[in-house]
């Protein structure tokens, strides 16, 4: 007797790799959405700054729009730059 795999369908969900449980701006869990959105996931993505802090994209964009001069990370006050991997 011999058993070999012919094909396999693996099922997985994906999660954010975040350094925190909750978004520092809206305090909502990263696994759920920012307050404006209904569905978590691709529709309400996370973004990272070079300072390594991460937020809901909608939250940080809103925050940055409210800072006319120094666009800083709301957590560490370093100037905010998106970390594009």
């Amino acid at each position, binding site marked *: *007797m*011999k*058993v*070999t*795999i*012919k*094909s*396999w*369908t*693996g*099922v*997985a*969900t*994906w*999660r*954010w*790799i*975040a350094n925190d449980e909750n978004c520092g701006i809206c305090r909502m869990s990263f*696994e*759920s*959405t920012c307050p404006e959105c*209904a*569905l*978590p*996931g*691709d529709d309400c993505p*996370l973004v*990272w700054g070079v300072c390594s802090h*991460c937020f809901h994209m909608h939250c940080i964009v809103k925050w940055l729009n409210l800072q006319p001069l120094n666009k800083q990370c709301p957590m560490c006050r370093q100037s905010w730059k998106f970390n594009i*991997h």
Partner: protein
Amino acid sequence: MLRAIGKRDRDIFEEVWPDKRRIVLKLLRQDTVSQREWQDLFFGVHFVCLWDEKGAAKIYDCLQQDIVEFIVQAQSQVQAQRGEQALLATYIVEWRKFFTQSNYLPLPFRQLEQSPQVKPSSSSSAASASGASTSAAAAASCSGQPGSSSSAVNKASASTSAAAAASSAASTSAAAASTSASTSSAAAAGAASSGSSSSSTSKKNPTEDSPVRKLMLDSWNMHIFHDIKHRLQESAMKIVHAERNGDAYDAQLVVGVRESYVNLSSNAEDKLEIYRENFEMAYLKATAEFYRLKSAEQQQENGVLAYMKYADAKLREEEVRAKRYLEPSSFNILTYTLVKVLIVDHLNSIIAECPALIRDYETERLNLMFRLMDRVLHGVGVEAMMSDLQRHIQSAGLADMLSASEVITQDSEKYVERLLELFNKFSDLVRNAFNDDPRFLTARDIAFKTVVNDTSVFKMELPTSIANRGVKYTAPESKCPELLANYCDMLLRRTPLSKRLTSEQIDARLRDVLLVLKYVNNKDVFMRYHKVHLTRRLILGTSADSEKEEDIVEWLREVGMPADYVNRLARMFQDIKVSEDLNTQFRSSISRHDAINIKILNAGAWARCSERVSVSLPIELEDYIPDVEEFYKKKHSGRKLQWYHHMSNGTITFVNNFGRYDLDVTTFQMAVLFAWNQRQHDKISYENLRLATELPDPELRRTLWSLVAFPKIKKQILLMEPAAINSPKDFAENTMFYINQEFAIVKNGKSQRRGKLNLIGRLQLSTERSQQEDNQSIVQLRILRTQEAIIKIMKVRKRMNNAALQGELIDILKNMFLPSKKMIKEQLEWLIEHKYMRRDDDDINMFIYVA
């Protein structure tokens, strides 16, 4: 005439009138009047009015005398008649003669209208021009006082020229009319043949407002009509009565009497006054009395069902008769009277037949009954029928379900089909018997709701208690939504059923499901099961038609399923498509992974997979996993994968001495079978299998059971020792399992050397523990939805009483579930306790939103 001018002091009236009076009498008698005489009369009236101060009044008085005299003669003629028909006939002849003359005689006397002496003696001011006082004056005019309507006076100057023109025209026609002695009857017949519109023809008559005409009619009314109207009515009603009994009579007699009633009225405001107060009343009374007797008799003799037919026929018959004998204004009140006598008085005995008729599906009779009942004011009868229908559908529907309960609780196809059959049957009934009347459709819908949501045939137990915010919640619910979802699954999955049906048939059945779903209270249960089935179909790729899958999502949106739920379903399709692209890319990146498929799901959109089960994968798979993860990390930075092995599955090739088979298995089954790869002939204990696979106890038991006792196959792939174990719970630590070396796929009693077999069955999407959690999650979700909806309402309303709040709440939630009163109350309490809202200090039923 010129002589008269010289004698202005003498009484011109005395001089001129006796001559003219003869012409008047001729006219009254309908004797021949030459054109010259006719014109003389005009001149005479004009002359007297011009030269004699009191001429107008004198003429008027004289005229009145003549008319009364004439009428008295006519009266004696009429009164002399003994027989009813003769009386009517004579009266009608006399009346028509008189009435015709009342159109001509006033013409020469138009000048009297302008004379102040002839006007009513009422001292009313200018305000008397208003209609009310006019009619009052007219009513008082029975005393013989000429009541010239003031509006006529107002118009008089304007109409003088018109009247002059009309008078010459009328004079010729009068002359023509009077050429033959028998003209009167001919003219009357002509007037009668013009039908019931005779009252309207007189409207255009220029003599309409004439005081002389009024004088004539009032005199007739006072001297003849008053005395014999009872005899007239009685006679007319006797004729109608005889006609109702089937004897033929001259209908024209009744019509003629009616016309005299109508035309007699000199009241300009209400032309039908005399008619209504006498003729109509008598007619209604006679009708009611006739049918009061008849209906009781009919019902006793022939029974209620035949009586309904009788009543219906009589109602129609009387409508036709009314068109002949009554003015259109009386139709409504007559119908009302008839309905009262024929239907309302027998309402209870008729309604009592309704349940039996519904039971026997007697659409024709029901339709008849409905038509009768629909005539009854305030819908009393219809309401009774509606509740009968509702009761019947409920009890018959439930009885039908109960009688078939053994089959339908197991077989969702049979259940849905039976349900639809039931619905169609009753919908047909409503259409055929009640013409799809909206009131009956509502009754049907209410009854359907009861049947669908009934819990006596089968129920789904929702958790009896939940430790959620201290809430205890018990509710057995109908299993209907679950069965509906199952049926949907059978149609959408590749099954014998979906293969048998054409695409159109499947569409039609899916529509049917949505139709039933409309009546389901707890649609959230359907949504959950539908989603679970969809998940299974998408993961295993067993959809029969992926287009249809997406169609039904849109249909669900159309029937009002909550948007976030539908969006999630749509999201699932999107994930599957994205995963397909991902697979293509993955395979082209690393050549050796042709056999690997990945399905990366959006955690929020898919069915809740709360619990991840650890399993030790076969070595080959373990090797693939890091490659996939690495690949995904490159595609999407900042994301990591979480494997859900209880959903993943695959195909293995199983080779033994007998043959070579492709088996579709779950990953768990795969893990178990791989335990034998190194030691094919060993017997492995349950305990060791657990160590090898690292599966949690319940999952291992379930997986093993699916390998030793998969339903409907002759030879199982695993065997066990001892062999007499009846349930997965009975596996002991030392139960031994071993590969069935004789395993083969058996077809038509023959073992096959090659073949394909699906051992997945119903893919377990959740572990045993999370299944309980799932039921709880339904309840929990309901609690949250209720709270959310209450807050949503209160935020807008600020203040609201309990009843209104419950109403709105049910409206918001009805597309998901029907919140129980108890739950609403509990959630209100919870929200008050947590200071989201408070009760009004003065009114315990008033809630106030606390920001």
